[in-house]
């Protein structure tokens, strides 16, 4: 391993600009003559819009225009779409309601954009927005997903009777019923997977800039996938043909899924820039972000697991109602279906699984993928069932897991997935050693002496990453292919630019992709630059989410590098006057086999361009190659997280006192970056388990609309974490990478709740397990010492 090659903890190339304050996030960019957009948003969760009077607002100082859904319609700007078709059990297609970028006669959630003010300064736009008079007829609202399906619930969209978008299922119901009949023990749980607000610290922003001379639009946008944004805004919204629309994603301050989707605000910024003939900038306030960034999770589930006398799992069944909010966001339909039920087998050999999912509309902010997307929800169901099952049967939870682990690969689960490689015992064992599981009983006694309840919780999770084989997702309803592209441009002097369709917003691609190239071509890492996030520069790509950039994006890069090497060998053959087949390439040097003749990388790259040594008819000058890589399978990172907590019996306050994570991510390019991804994922999972949760009141007002009420994990919520790995190579891609971006967020919630319930001795606890929730659970379980 070289100091900068695969496996080295190379310090990040991108850091200098971030630690010196010289990065360029969307809000740091200003266009000459730009004006500011401020949205008038519905204060009601559900209301008919009787009229919008923009007269006095339009007359305010600095105002260029006030635009509403009427103008949007007149200009034939199309609706936003959900790009993954799900069919119900009865074969009917999902019920996708129209989602205009500005409300058209009806507002469906608090924050639904109703009008936009364009003004010279932001303060002027905001002042004028208060003068827009909207007359609403308020309708009853529904925010709870189960209530939304009940008879008599407010109907949000005509297309969806009982607010039901689809009633989907996966698995063999009859076979599962049979398995349950033969069971020795059945564990049953009612689970709420709490609604989360992603809250990347950089709020979303967009600058739309229309050039009337060329008829082209440019969009600077906080997006994780600029090409997909361009495709949707061109093909579905109909703003401009793809070749007349450039999308640039500059430095992006975190995404976690929330910046995948195509939102109303960027569509409006583009459209308005043409309307007013000026670049239009919009930057979300945090309070606004709470009302317009897609939320995550929000499931209500009943789940059951059947065991035989030996504790072997016989079957699992689950019924979930998934809240998709007021409109179907870009990939929302896939999250509670193909990213959820397909992971219900966990790390276990489960002969039969059946999962039903109803997706519903409610008068809440749309819900879509958030770090882990479906897989944290699945893991929570499976890992809670296994843990509670073990407790109910009086078995050691680690032992019960071990007994049920899948040990032979490949393994076909009853829910589509074909696991290709793994060693679940290895990660469990290593984690238990690192966590000193043997010493737990003593630690528990020590805690008890200090009036604290100590608990330990496991989560042996699995995820499907490397999203995704295009054919497979196509057959399941996905509207796009999920391959990735890469281009390698070698300059005459031997330095290299690589262009990737992936997009980094914290993941460190400028370093890891360069490591791969440096390793492969034997050139210094500083001679490699990574270009991403601009549709004018980069060939089509699918962006970054689903832990795909390593497994899919880097695989495309490997393919392109293969081609570069092949071509460079041809050039070297001419240069060294040898047969192409005799050229060997190693450590940045081309040599002729069996001789001492060689040429350095730089000689060959220069020769590729000056083209003095070969004729154009036999070999094209230049050295630039591209590739598309379509994976043949998902990848299956898995591992074991162990959480240890102390609960203050009097206040219900939980402190996480230790965290151990042993993950199998396959081959690791940069362990430092991988560890960082794990830390961040765990923090988000701990946030979900301990303190985060979006709460709506009955009228549909978001009660947790700022950091004052929505608890973001702080440094003192978390311990330092003990993070380690085991390795089984992923057989389906050339590097053996599985992916690491979501593991922590997937594993953590179950580990925390398993630990707290172990400590307090009752399973009746919902997330987030705030001190008041834990106290209440203790009260209910009557474990509280007398009020004293």
């Amino acid at each position: 391993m070289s100091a900068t090659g695969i496996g080295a903890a190379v310090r990040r190339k991108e850091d200098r600009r971030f630690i010196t304050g010289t990065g360029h996030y969307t809000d740091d960019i200003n266009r000459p003559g730009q004006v500011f957009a401020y949205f008038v948003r519905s204060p009601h969760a559900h209301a008919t819009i009787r009229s919008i009077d923009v007269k006095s607002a339009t007359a305010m100082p600095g105002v260029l225009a006030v635009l509403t859904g009427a103008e949007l319609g007149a200009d034939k700007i199309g609706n936003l779409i959900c790009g993954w078709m799900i069919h119900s059990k009865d074969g009917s297609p999902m019920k996708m309601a129209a989602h205009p970028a500005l409300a058209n006669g009806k507002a469906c959630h608090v924050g639904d954009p109703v009008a936009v003010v364009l003004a010279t300064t932001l303060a002027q736009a905001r002042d004028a927005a208060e003068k827009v008079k909207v007359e609403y007829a308020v309708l009853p609202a529904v925010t709870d997903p189960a209530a939304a399906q009940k008879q008599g619930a407010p109907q949000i969209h005509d297309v969806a009777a009982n607010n039901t978008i689809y009633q989907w299922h996966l698995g063999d119901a009859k076979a599962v019923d049979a398995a349950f009949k033969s069971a020795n023990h059945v564990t049953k749980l009612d689970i709420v997977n709490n609604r989360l607000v992603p809250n990347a610290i950089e709020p979303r922003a967009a600058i739309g800039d229309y050039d009337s001379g060329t008829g082209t639009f440019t969009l600077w946008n906080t997006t994780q996938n600029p090409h997909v944004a361009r495709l949707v805004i061109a093909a579905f919204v109909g703003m401009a043909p793809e070749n007349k629309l450039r999308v640039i994603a500059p430095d992006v301050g975190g995404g976690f899924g929330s910046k995948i989707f195509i939102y109303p605000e960027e569509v409006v910024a583009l459209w308005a820039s043409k309307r007013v003939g000026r670049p239009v900038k919009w930057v979300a306030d945090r309070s606004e972000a709470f009302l317009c960034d897609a939320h995550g999770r929000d499931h209500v589930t009943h789940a059951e697991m059947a065991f035989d006398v030996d504790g072997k799992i016989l079957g699992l069944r689950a019924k979930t109602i998934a809240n998709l909010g007021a409109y179907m966001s870009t990939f929302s339909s896939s999250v509670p279906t193909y990213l959820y039920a397909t992971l219900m087998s966990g790390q276990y050999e489960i002969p039969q699984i059946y999962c039903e999912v109803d997706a519903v509309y409610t008068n809440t902010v749309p819900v879509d993928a958030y770090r882990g997307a479906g897989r944290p929800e699945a893991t929570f169901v499976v890992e809670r069932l296994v843990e509670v099952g073990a407790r109910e049967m009086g078995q050691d939870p680690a032992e019960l897991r071990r007994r049920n682990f899948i040990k032979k690969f490949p393994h076909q689960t009853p829910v589509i997935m074909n696991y290709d490689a793994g060693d679940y015992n290895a990660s469990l064992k290593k984690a238990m050693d690192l966590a000193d599981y043997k010493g737990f009983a003593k630690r528990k006694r020590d805690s008890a002496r200090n009036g604290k309840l100590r608990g330990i919780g496991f989560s042996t999770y699995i995820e499907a990453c490397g999203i995704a084989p295009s054919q497979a997702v196509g057959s399941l309803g996905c509207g796009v292919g999920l391959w990735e592209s890469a281009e390698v441009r070698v300059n005459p002097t031997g330095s290299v630019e690589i262009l990737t369709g992936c997009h980094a917003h914290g993941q460190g691609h400028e370093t890891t992709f360069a490591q791969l190239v440096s390793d492969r071509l034997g050139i210094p890492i500083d001679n490699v630059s990574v270009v991403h996030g601009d549709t004018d520069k980069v060939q089509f790509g699918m962006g970054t989410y689903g832990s795909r950039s390593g497994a899919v994006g880097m695989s495309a890069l490997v393919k392109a590098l293969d081609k570069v090497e092949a071509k460079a060998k041809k050039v070297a053959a001419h240069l060294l006057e040898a047969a192409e087949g005799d050229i060997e390439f190693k450590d940045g040097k081309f040599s002729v086999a069996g001789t001492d003749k060689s040429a350095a990388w730089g000689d060959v790259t220069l020769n590729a361009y000056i083209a003095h040594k070969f004729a154009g008819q036999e070999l094209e000058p230049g050295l630039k190659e591209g590739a598309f890589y379509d994976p043949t399978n998902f990848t299956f990172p898995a591992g074991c997280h162990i959480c240890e907590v102390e609960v203050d019996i009097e206040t219900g306050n939980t402190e996480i006192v230790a965290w151990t994570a042993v993950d199998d991510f396959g081959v690791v390019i940069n362990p430092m970056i991988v560890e960082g991804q794990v830390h961040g994922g765990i923090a988000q999972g701990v946030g979900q388990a301990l303190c985060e949760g979006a709460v709506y009141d009955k009228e549909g007002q978001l009660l947790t609309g700022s950091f004052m009420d929505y608890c973001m994990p702080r440094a003192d919520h978390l311990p330092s974490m003990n993070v380690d790995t085991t390795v089984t190579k992923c057989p389906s891609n050339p590097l053996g990478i599985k992916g690491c971006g979501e593991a922590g967020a997937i594993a953590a919630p179950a580990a925390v709740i398993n630990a707290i319930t172990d400590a307090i001795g009752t399973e009746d606890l919902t997330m987030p397990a705030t001190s008041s929730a834990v106290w209440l659970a203790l009260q209910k379980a009557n474990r509280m010492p007398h009020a004293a």
Partner: protein
Amino acid sequence: MYAFTFHRPQTVRQAASLLAKNQEAKLLAGGHTLLPTMKLRLAGPPQLIDLSLIDGLAGIEQSGRSLTIGAMTRHNDVNTSPVVQQAIPVLAKLAGMIGDPAVRHMGTIGGSIANNDPNADYPAACLGLGVTIVTNKRRIKADEFFTGMFSTALEPAEIITKVSFPIPKKAAYQKFRNQASRFALVGVFVSKRGSDIRVAVTGAGSNGVFRVSSFEEALKKRFSPKSLEGMTIPADGMNSDIHGSAEYRAHLVGVLARRAVAEAIGKSAA
């Protein structure tokens, strides 16, 4: 923010006369309550009167058995003052529990008590120590000053200039944080000065900071956590929201009061 004009008077008298001229004008101290409110357009004073150039409004002084802290004294200065640490260590500690370091560099004691946020820390200390609040017009006892959530006995054009703290024999403060805002979900301040025993509670009450006379009576017999064993306060009158029910808050008042007394007498809490 809504538009406003900005004034920087040099004296309290000038500030008061500006305030008297416009009922809607607001004093600006550290700005760490007022500016966030203005940014969210929940307040829109047409005039802001910045107190920071007025001489003599900030500072800490001890004379005999009383400690005086100027209205414009920042939380950080109270937290790190050797005088406060010596005279009323719990007050220094409490100031260090307010918000975060940056908030403590700006926020002031005058602003905090004038604002009387029902979850703020200083009001508990003021009521729990029986301070006297000194304004440009008069001296007001803490028991009369805090009149309900976000409301005080201050009259229009009245400016807090300093707070006078009697030095207790024993005192302690237990803060149980709201995990989102980091203000007090419940905070209990206890003190003992001769026969004057005070238990003041912030965060819990639906009407702002209050004293718990039943606890005070019990502690008069013996200043020990044992005296409070088994005691609670009724849940009605407690705040109830997504962060905790009235019952939970009432329960915490008991727990934290016992822990505070234990801390005050130098025993480990719990």
